[in-house]
């Protein structure tokens, strides 16, 4: 399974998101620090979930980081996160 699918699966299972978008942006960073042959290093996620209600920005990102700890340990280099609760404006 590719990292994109693993990220998607991990967030989907744990957060039951109403919206989830995972985008591989590794190609945009080819040649930069952290980029590796084969890509799978830079991702962007947009996730809307009730799990974020009443949580600070830092707490939201920490939650996502924790769910993806294995990915960070295996070469995930950068993750841009937009984490919203369902009742919040974009």
């Amino acid at each position: 399974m590719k990292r994109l699918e693993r990220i998607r699966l991990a967030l989907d299972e744990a957060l039951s998101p109403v919206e989830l978008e995972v985008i591989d942006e590794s190609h945009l960073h080819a040649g930069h620090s952290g980029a590796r042959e084969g890509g799978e290093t830079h991702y962007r996620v947009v996730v809307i979930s009730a799990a974020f209600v009443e949580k600070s920005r830092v707490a939201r990102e920490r939650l996502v980081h924790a769910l993806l700890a294995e990915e960070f340990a295996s070469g995930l280099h950068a993750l841009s996160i937009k984490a919203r609760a369902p009742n919040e404006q974009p």
Partner: protein
Amino acid sequence: MTDSPTVERIKQHVSGNDVMLFMKGTPVFPQCGFSAAVVQILNHMGVKFGSTDVLVDPEIRQGVKEFSNWPTVPQLYVKGEFVGGCDILREMFETGELEEFFNQAGIEREAV
């Protein structure tokens, strides 16, 4: 338990600068788009900040991730508190929260 020398150094950076940025590259020559974005926001707001280039210091690079339980760089600290990385700062800047945050923290700013 005593802190490792690396943690000690991180603490010194964080306590020695009201606004402290761990980044890749330098404010003049950022080596990563996310670090560059944070520098741009801070400069735009006229905030003076200290910075460390984690690319030339592998111990700090690894240590700062463990220090705040935050897996990526850049990382911004204000008055000793971890504020966030690029996404958080960008969002706070766009909503005006960052302005308010710096004001409340009593961070001096230059007119820009």
